[in-house]
């Protein structure tokens, strides 16, 4: 005889932790996490091994040394790859892979699933960011003898930038119908489209792209420079015409607000879309 035990499901907070735990476990098993760590290791090996291999000296200035770890080509790229892999299809995969039929008829709110998945992505990507800066700072101490507070500022900005990028990934994963499209579009938007728009609007158009996430993410590297760089422009003669190119530098405070804004607004939009999305087909 079956005897219904009428259990009470755990609290929302406990369920968030459970969802996050199993999401990380799934990423471990699927080798996505391993993939990110391999990419991170390769990038670190390149930064650490390239100067001696090319016969160059390491930069002996602590901030100069850390700059190679805190540039758009390195940490920002790693964050974008992480956001693509761990946020780009976080929501849509439950629909496209039909795992939603398994998970949604459980006593767990969609907001809890969203929060758990978000937490898992943040733990994984920010874990990778912390490893990155940890290796940078430790090797910096070993090579230059010290690490300045600017490295910590850069780390904090990188963490904030990563959360905003995760927000973009989650939003696209809630909006799009297919996992592959969501993954490709997340990467393309963060790595190509936003920087191209920034260049077009900013460098050529002369409008400072302060609301762009890619532009705000530039502070991760810029903050390592002393003094902090300033906006500039220069005019070139191209084809008999004068063309003024602008070099805009993101303001740190504005960038923090922009990144927080992206995180909050896209997080809220994602939750609304996820709650409204139905398991059709």
């Amino acid at each position, binding site marked *: 005889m079956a005897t219904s035990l009428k259990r009470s*499901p755990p609290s929302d907070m406990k369920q968030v932790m459970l969802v996050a735990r*199993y999401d990380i476990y799934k990423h471990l098993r699927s080798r996505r996490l391993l993939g990110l760590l391999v990419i991170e290791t390769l990038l670190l090996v390149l930064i650490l091994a390239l100067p001696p291999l090319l016969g160059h000296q390491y930069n002996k200035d602590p901030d100069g040394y850390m700059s190679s770890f805190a540039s758009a080509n390195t940490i920002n790229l790693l964050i974008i790859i992480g956001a693509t892999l761990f946020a780009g299809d976080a929501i849509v995969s439950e629909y496209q*892979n039909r795992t939603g039929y398994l998970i949604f008829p459980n006593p767990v*709110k969609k907001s809890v699933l969203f929060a758990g998945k978000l937490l898992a992505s943040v733990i994984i990507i920010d874990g990778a960011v912390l490893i990155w800066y940890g290796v940078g700072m430790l090797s910096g101490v070993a090579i230059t003898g010290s690490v300045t507070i600017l490295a910590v500022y850069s780390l904090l900005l990188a963490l904030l930038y990563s959360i905003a990028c995760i927000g973009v990934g989650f939003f696209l994963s809630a909006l799009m119908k297919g996992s592959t499209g969501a993954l490709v579009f997340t990467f393309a938007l963060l790595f190509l489209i936003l920087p191209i728009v920034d260049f077009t609007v900013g460098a050529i158009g002369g409008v400072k792209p302060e609301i762009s996430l890619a532009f705000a993410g530039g502070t991760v590297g810029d903050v390592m420079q002393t003094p902090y760089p300033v906006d500039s422009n220069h005019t070139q003669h191209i084809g008999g015409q004068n063309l003024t190119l602008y070099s805009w530098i993101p303001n740190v405070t504005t960038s923090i607000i922009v990144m927080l804004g992206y995180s909050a607004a896209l997080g809220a939009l994602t939750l609304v879309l996820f709650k409204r999305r139905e398991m059709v087909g």
Partner: protein
Amino acid sequence: MQEPIVLENLTKDYGNSFKAVDVLNLNVKRNSFVGFLGPNGAGKTTTIKMLTNLLTITSGKAYLNGVDVSADPKNALSDIGAVVETPEFYPFLTPVETFEYLGSLRGMSKEEVRKRGKEVLELVKMTEWSTTRIGKFSKGMKQRIALAQALIHEPSVIILDEPTSGLDPRGMVEVREVLLELKKRDYTVFMSSHQLNEVQEICSEVAMIDHGRLLAYDSVTSLISKIESKRLEVRIANQVIGGAMDSVRGYAGVELLNVLTPSTFQLDFKGGEEEQAQLLLFLQSQGLKIVSFKESGLALENLYMNLIKSSR
């Protein structure tokens, strides 16, 4: 105690005046095994999806154990086990890991999940696959694991959406065996199906819908007893004789006669058991050497076809 499943004027409107479920009312009694029947597009899966919070309800209410699914899905679904469509699993997790995940979300301790996991895997005959990644499983194996996960927390109500759909004959038999096992226990089961034989064999009650509306809801025996016309198949040792057939056509209660082969014919006959016995004597009196005289097709199928026909 609250009724396990109550639908009150449940409606799902997809716009363009298409209502997949149209003011559906249903009250499922505790410990009943209800078959939910209807043709493709009748609204069965839509109803089940609204019940399990996979689709939003346009209007009306759905209650599970007295809790409004729309207003408080977490509590409403806390004592429910569901298999909707053919769910997919996280391919990198094993059945045991999947049970641990879902069980913990439902408030089970690790020890409970371990103990119940063994029991349900045994029930669905998947014990030897407990630590194999589900990504390697066939559709039939996944369906059995889907049933197992629906049962692991010993819910009082089990909702199944075409549990044998897409399975090969062996898979169907295996899943039916599990369903029959469930029937022996005191679960309330609400199961949609296309398989009328399955419903007639397993279910104690049947709800039939078409165009999102309820056509009939009663016990299987009661519904079958309401069927006035039976289809009978007759096989004879000699050949069908034209004159005899004309007499049979004219016999009271015979509504339709189809000659299938030179030695077989089928007739729709309206009457009780006594009238049926008289018909047999009449056929013999017409010179037909009866080899077999039996009801053809399922009683439920006949009723189903009649109801669907009249609803269109």
